[in-house]
């Protein structure tokens, strides 16, 4: 069973959060809060020292998580523990390749097998993926594809051939947390992706509020949204008060669950 194969048809909600942020024990509380809303997908960011594709907010979250020497094993253990109450929520790991390679690809997969449904390896392009993809698919873990506005049609077709889970469409050329949303362009590209593949297309990067979520659903053909930086930003807005943050997080998730 892979929860990603039974995602709803429309209005899919995926929530991203960095593991071990701000500390391991507080991170558990945050994920439990997220899980209590039963979103369709939770993305677990594994902190990396050099998150090339991430903006300042997720960078800061990574830095905080790593400042208490969080290990990859601790992150994976946290995900395993949370999976006991996962129900229909799909678990997806989002990470950089060096984390997986250094841990050992086989050992990594063994640790997440039957727990995690999909994985996004941000800096593993199609050209470099074949070996890891094989090992993942043997263990029923989907390698989720990122598509950017720079990916042309021919390349997208190549990338999406027998892809599984969902398509992560990067809504703005930019790092996580960037703000410009061009609905016209998003719609055009999402439409074209939907012609190439049957799996859902989720739009991520730069989605911040209920308003953004509604606009995406109204103005584009996307099947859902991914929210990350906006969830983390609240923690800094609230001057790193974890109790206030948990309340604000609950409120924000309720809002975006339209």
């Amino acid at each position, binding site marked *: 069973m892979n929860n990603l194969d039974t995602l709803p048809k429309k209005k899919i909600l995926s929530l991203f959060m960095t593991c071990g942020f701000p500390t391991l024990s507080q991170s558990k509380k945050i994920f439990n809060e997220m899980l209590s809303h039963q979103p369709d997908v939770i993305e677990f960011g594994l902190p*990396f*020292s*050099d998150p*090339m*594709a991430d*903006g300042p907010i997720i*960078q800061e979250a990574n*830095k905080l998580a*790593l400042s208490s020497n969080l*290990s*990859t094993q601790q992150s994976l253990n946290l995900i395993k523990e949370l999976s006991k109450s996962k129900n229909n929520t799909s678990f997806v790991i989002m990470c*950089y*390749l*060096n*984390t997986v*390679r*250094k*841990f050992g690809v086989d050992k990594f997969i063994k640790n997440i097998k039957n727990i995690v449904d999909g994985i996004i390896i*941000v*800096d*593993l*392009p*199609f*050209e*470099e993926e074949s070996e890891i993809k094989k090992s993942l698919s043997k263990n029923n873990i989907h390698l989720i*594809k*990122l*598509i*950017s*506005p*720079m*990916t*042309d049609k021919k*390349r997208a077709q190549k*990338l999406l051939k027998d892809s599984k889970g969902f398509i992560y469409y*990067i809504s703005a*050329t*930019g*790092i996580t947390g*960037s703000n410009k949303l061009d609905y016209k362009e998003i719609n055009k590209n999402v439409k074209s992706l939907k012609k190439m593949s049957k799996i859902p297309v989720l739009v991520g990067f730069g989605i911040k509020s209920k308003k953004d979520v509604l606009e995406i659903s109204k103005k584009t053909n996307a099947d859902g949204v991914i929210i990350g930086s906006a969830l983390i930003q609240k923690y800094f807005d609230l001057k790193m008060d974890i109790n206030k943050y948990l309340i604000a997080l609950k409120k924000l998730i309720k809002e975006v669950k339209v």
Partner: protein
Amino acid sequence: MKTYKQPSTVGRFGEFGGMYVSETLMPLLLNLDKSYKKIQKDKKFKKELNDLFKNYVGRPSSLHFAKNLSKYINGPKVYFKRDELNHTGAHKINNCLGQILLAKKMGKTRIIAETGAGQHGVATATVCALFGLPCYIYMGSKDIERQKPNVFRMKLLGATIIPVESGSKSLKDAMNEALRDWIKNVRDTFYIIGSTAGPHPYPKMVRDFQSVIGKEAREQILKVEKKLPDYLIACVGGGSNAMGLFYPFLNDKKVKIIGVEAAGRGAKTEETAATMTSGTPGILHGSYSYVLQDNDGQIKEAHSISAGLDYPGVGPEHSHLKDIKRVKYFGVTDKEALEAFQTCSKLEGIIPALEPSHALAYLIKAFKNKHKNKLVILNMCGRGDKDLFTAAKAIGFDADE
């Protein structure tokens, strides 16, 4: 050894190299690779670049017999390949001219770069001034502090400097920020990477543009000595000046090649930048190569007195050359480099940058009273003007006295 022919078409030097970047950049890199392949065959491009090398940079740089230093070492005959005489004071300009011509051909209208010592930043700002393109330089705030003369130079040349406060506030973080800028501004921006690091095709492209150093040196030494050198020595940060000198000699099996890394306070300490001596293979800035990292693959901060060598990674081609044992790599400490910096200044009347001072330190240490009748070419890849404040402070010289 078979004839050396690297990288493969997918940018692999043995197992190293590759393109580990997000899908936002991937189409750009593939496009860059294609454009680069095209201009390699373009005679007009070659001519344009050679003209600039000759009339703007002042190439060929001379090959100077360092008589006094040779006498002091009491070993081999030492030649300096004097790329420190280049316009802007280092080898970095060779690569910047190549890349900006390519950027122009690709129709890009905005240039970004990272810089450590500021030499690559100055070289990039220079070519941007020459070609009239807006220039944005990412520089760690720690490096801004220790390379002030170059910061002012870049500003004079019209560049905008963007201080980087993340991580160790030095070269690694400047490169992260430059890559993020590129991801955000993919359509109009060309990223001029300053060393043989980063994703394919950069390591190959930068090496090719820098290999003018080795090509000239080979001709020059054959002319004066009627034979090839026995040793080549160069410092290695990301590895561009070293690859530039080494590459045209890789198939000359008798030429022994030595790369010198910055070992900071010692290769066995945590305060080092000697990636190949103390690191393990991993992925940084889009390329698989030796890196300084912990057991979880978190990249460590590097340390070196020389801002240009203060980088926890190294170009993939060097990693390959290390593994096939074609090049040997050694570490030199801050202290040793500072001593060589002074020795060379006094003996040869050439104030070297702190980067090649590492190569000099290794030469003095390892060749003292040895290898008589041998020939050495050392890449004098930069001059010391930019380092005067740092060196004065480290040596304990008070300019007001």
